[in-house]
């Protein structure tokens, strides 16, 4: 049992790392996709629109399976022999794609809710368009998007558990291994739940603090 405490710690690290990396990358993807959706270039809007619609209409598990097994096939044919894709990378890629699709919608909605007046005020200060974006629109947008973004991070933490299905040794996987070898599935899965609940509660606290911080400054 003692050994499993250490393994759970390792699993926790993996889960957190996976969430942080794919969340960060996913936000970048989401920002770019939101910008594309707001662009005047129609083909770009269509392509990115298809991306967000498809990803959000399909189970996350399926996307993970496609990337893991599809990636393995692709790499194997590249090397000419069977090479299994690394579960962590597959997880990062899959969750980034998912997170990007959802945050794209959030960012897009946030930009659209910024009033024209605020943007024109920035222009009238003599700011360049790119300065307007960087200094005015982006910070405003982040503040507006914060609650929805918090929800998304909250979901992301839970979705990392799906990567255990393709073999990543995260919290969930440690619990599954322990459940089998110690013949105590309830104990191990309850322990895993406690860890996930800890992480999601942490995310909740962090986002509440962020929201409060920005609400005060936003006055």
């Amino acid at each position, binding site marked *: 049992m003692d050994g499993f405490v250490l393994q759970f710690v390792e699993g926790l690290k993996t889960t957190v790392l996976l969430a942080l990396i794919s969340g960060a990358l996913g936000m970048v993807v989401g920002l770019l996709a939101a910008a594309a959706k707001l662009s005047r270039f129609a083909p770009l809007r269509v392509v990115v629109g298809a991306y967000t619609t498809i990803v959000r209409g399909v189970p996350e598990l399926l996307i993970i399976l496609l990337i893991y097994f599809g990636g393995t096939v692709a790499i194997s044919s590249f090397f000419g022999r069977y090479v299994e894709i690394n579960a962590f990378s597959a997880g990062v890629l899959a969750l980034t794609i998912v997170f990007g699709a959802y945050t794209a919608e959030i960012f897009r909605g946030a930009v659209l809710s910024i009033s024209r007046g605020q943007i024109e005020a920035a222009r009238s200060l003599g700011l360049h368009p790119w300065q307007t974006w960087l200094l005015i629109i982006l910070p405003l947008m982040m503040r507006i998007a914060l609650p929805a973004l918090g929800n998304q991070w909250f979901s992301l933490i839970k979705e990392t558990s799906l990567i255990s299905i393709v073999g990543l040794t995260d919290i969930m996987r440690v619990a599954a291994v322990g459940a089998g070898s110690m013949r105590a599935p*309830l104990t191990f899965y309850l322990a895993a739940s406690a860890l996930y609940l800890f992480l999601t509660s942490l995310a909740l606290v962090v986002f509440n603090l962020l929201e409060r911080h920005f609400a005060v400054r936003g006055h």
Partner: protein
Amino acid sequence: MDVELLLTSTMTLASGIPLTLILALASLVIGLVLSVPLAFLRASGNRWVSLPVLAYTYVFRGTPLLVQLFIIYYGLGQIDFIRSSVLWHVLRDPFWCSLLAFSLNSAAYTTEVFRGGILAVPPGMIDAAQAIGMTPLQQKRKIILPIAFRGILPSYVNEVIALLKASSLASTVTLLEITGLSRKLVSETFAPYEIFIAAGILYLGLTSVFTSGFRMLETRWLNAPPKQAAPDGIAVKRVAHGS
């Protein structure tokens, strides 16, 4: 990409649609039925009534559905009391376990959504019901619930879509719904692209059918002109813990 394989596997995987639908819709209905009384308790001003419900929704929304499913399917057997009871016949069956896990999970989300809807019912509507002499139960059934439900209908679509997608987790406990079938097929043919994409197409079809179905229900029920549709089908994922 082998288009012919894509088409044939779409046909094969379509046989998983009924199980996907049964799992999603049955847990949706069970979740809805459970959530109505829970939401009223949760909306209650009495802490001793609302806090236990909050504990339930907090835990079920704060942990992955996969863990919940495994606790029910693998974990409950560890308890001798359950193993020796009649319940065991149900709780060792992957279908019933999935249904139970999805229903409890859905009830937790729907409870919070409903609570928001109940609290958003204008107090004047309840004043009018009280003034006419309705009992508290009549007020809830005839006034508060219908108004709350209409209010949350747009966000309830998200719950339906979320459940359709969540039902794919049943494949992890050996059920052969769309995802389970596709995993089986991939392990036999090792053609992940065609088969998983075919499964994706089926899910996309289901989610868009449900989204547009709910849109129609919304316009008819809310008796309002069709709303400006969102640029693409599905709105933001179901909300996590309310702030």
